[in-house]
């Protein structure tokens, strides 16, 4: 290899990577915008959206309650033993409430939805892609993005804020279970301090996050499935498997990154 090539090849590789990244981001953004616009296109897909609300929302309630309860319980335990060192165990209610409402509720609910519904959406759409079902929609003059993605996006936008609310409430009662019932903090203190500390801005912030995360989860998981055929490292069933893995990993990472970005804007 010539000396010039030694110098330029890493630069070229970096350039290729950046171009690839830009192309992917652009395609992802267009995919999201197209899906969002088609939600409002006539005729509205009420039935399909309701189906997705049931699949993404209703079917996730159990797992959300379970993770919410244990998250609240562990927050209660950890919070109590930390606060008791400073004689501030009375502040456990606000600590649990604010942590859940501002951060953990939206983030963990979104990650749980990614794991449960997002992976299924990526796999389903991926299989439709490799078995030419998406091409079949195209040939029937049916817009695949409208038919497949828009109802899922709408379903996630409706479901995730509600699931986050359930997560928060169950988590708060989980904290109450360990903090008050097990470790002896007065329930009155736990709840009254929480009511004093939590303001509407916190709830709105959590709501905004959950809406953004819904968009992130639905878009990334559906996108990964939709473009399974473009994956260079695997075709067919292997490609769908890789798409599903990528969907869960990317969506989870993007949830954490967007969480940081939103939080930094809000504070």
């Amino acid at each position, binding site marked *: 290899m010539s000396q010039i090539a030694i110098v330029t090849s890493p630069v070229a590789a970096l350039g290729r990577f950046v171009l690839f990244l830009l192309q992917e981001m652009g395609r992802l953004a267009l995919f999201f915008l197209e899906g969002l616009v088609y939600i409002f296109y006539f005729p509205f897909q009420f039935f399909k959206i309701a189906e997705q609300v049931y699949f993404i929302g209703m079917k996730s309630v159990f797992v959300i309650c379970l993770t919410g309860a244990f998250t609240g319980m562990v927050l209660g335990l950890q919070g109590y033993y930390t606060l008791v060192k400073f004689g501030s165990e009375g502040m456990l209610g606000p600590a649990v409430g604010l942590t859940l409402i501002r951060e953990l509720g939206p983030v963990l609910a979104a990650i749980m939805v990614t794991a449960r519904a997002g992976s299924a959406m990526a796999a389903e759409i991926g299989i439709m892609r490799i078995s030419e*079902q998406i*091409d*079949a929609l195209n*040939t029937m003059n*049916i817009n695949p993005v409208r038919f497949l993605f828009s109802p899922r996006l709408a379903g996630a936008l409706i479901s995730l804020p509600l699931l986050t609310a359930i997560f928060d409430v169950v988590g708060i009662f989980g904290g109450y279970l360990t903090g008050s019932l097990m470790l002896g903090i007065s329930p009155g203190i736990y709840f009254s301090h929480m009511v004093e500390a939590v303001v509407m801005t916190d709830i709105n912030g959590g709501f905004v996050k959950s809406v953004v995360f819904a968009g992130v989860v639905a878009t990334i998981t559906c996108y990964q499935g939709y473009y399974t055929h473009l994956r260079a490292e695997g075709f067919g069933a292997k490609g769908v498997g890789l798409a599903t893995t990528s969907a869960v990993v990317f969506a989870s990472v993007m949830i954490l990154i967007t969480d940081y970005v939103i939080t930094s804007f809000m504070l």
Partner: protein
Amino acid sequence: MSEPLIRFDDIHKRFGTNEVLNGVNLSVYEGEITTVIGKSGGGKSVLLKHIVGLMQQDEGRVLIEGKPLREMTRAERRAMKRRFSYMFQGNALFDSMTVYDNVALPLKEKTDMPKKEIPGQVEKKMDQLDLHDIHNKYPSQLSGGMQKRVALARALVTDPEIVLFDEPTTGLDPVRKNAVHSMISDYQQQFGFTGVIVSHEIPDVFYISQRIGMLDEGRIIFEGKPEDIQNSRDPLVQRFVQGFESRHDQLTGMAPQSQGEQRYREEIARMDRYQNVFSLILLTMDRIDGERKRDHEAHQTALKEFSQRIRNHLRLTDICSRYGMNKLMIILPNANQQQAEEVCAKLAANLQTTEGADALFGSEGCFRVTAGIAEAAKDSPIEQVLSAAEEARNPFYEFRVC
């Protein structure tokens, strides 16, 4: 000849460094079935996908009614797509939907048909394709042949003007394969659509196609009628056809059409040399029980069974070959017209009495086999003798199996 409905004009398509289509020129005419034949992985499906815009060519033009596809506006393209239907190689049925929903989907999503009328239209199409009592089943619960029929019902439910078939018989056994071909031919005649088939089923597709395009090394090396391709003197075309054609027709176990024609030419040569006579019998099998007329699988099973029994009753020197979707040709060397008639009468009698009509076909349904006999004259082309046999179809040899 009239203006082609679809024309590929110097189409090039590359995937990386692999040039799959290397200047394809092909015309598809209205109301005809045009079949593109070629090796597996030779770019046939890629070519088909260019028609509906599932793939874009790197160079060249796809013209629909003379207008380049790329120059169409979005609205024009949408309107054009409404005229098409596509039957995929793997059927592409929506596996999470029932059969009814699969067939109804194009009507629900892309037509203005009132909701009340959709079940009637779906029912009608499913009935025409002999799909009964499977409305609430899922595609995975159906046999391969049944799935093909559902895919065909979905492709035809909007009454399209142009239907594209991507390897419609892949993975099917000979009976089902022939049933699908017969189905396509039957419905093309019934509904009058223009069909484009991509296939490597030679010679089966010759029986149902009006035009053949032969794709090799990314180019169309032959375009014309099926009989022209079989009679082509071009060594490349001959090699290609012979490479695909098996010694025996998979369904009937008889020689394929081209070999039947070859034997005919040999008999003509013998006639010249030794002054022999020979005759030809053309057997045509039709289904005549109205209601179940479209049970193509039963028809092909019956043809298979019938062919086997015919072979058992003929002399060793007689030459049988398949000569169309439901036609068999028998060459009787050293037999004049009268002797051939006697052989035929004996054959019919044997089939009726010794085998028993019901046992013969082993399936429900009524079939009629007509026999036409003609004696070959010196230097007479096969088409002439066959046409004489066709005209002389004698009801005396007609027998029904119900």
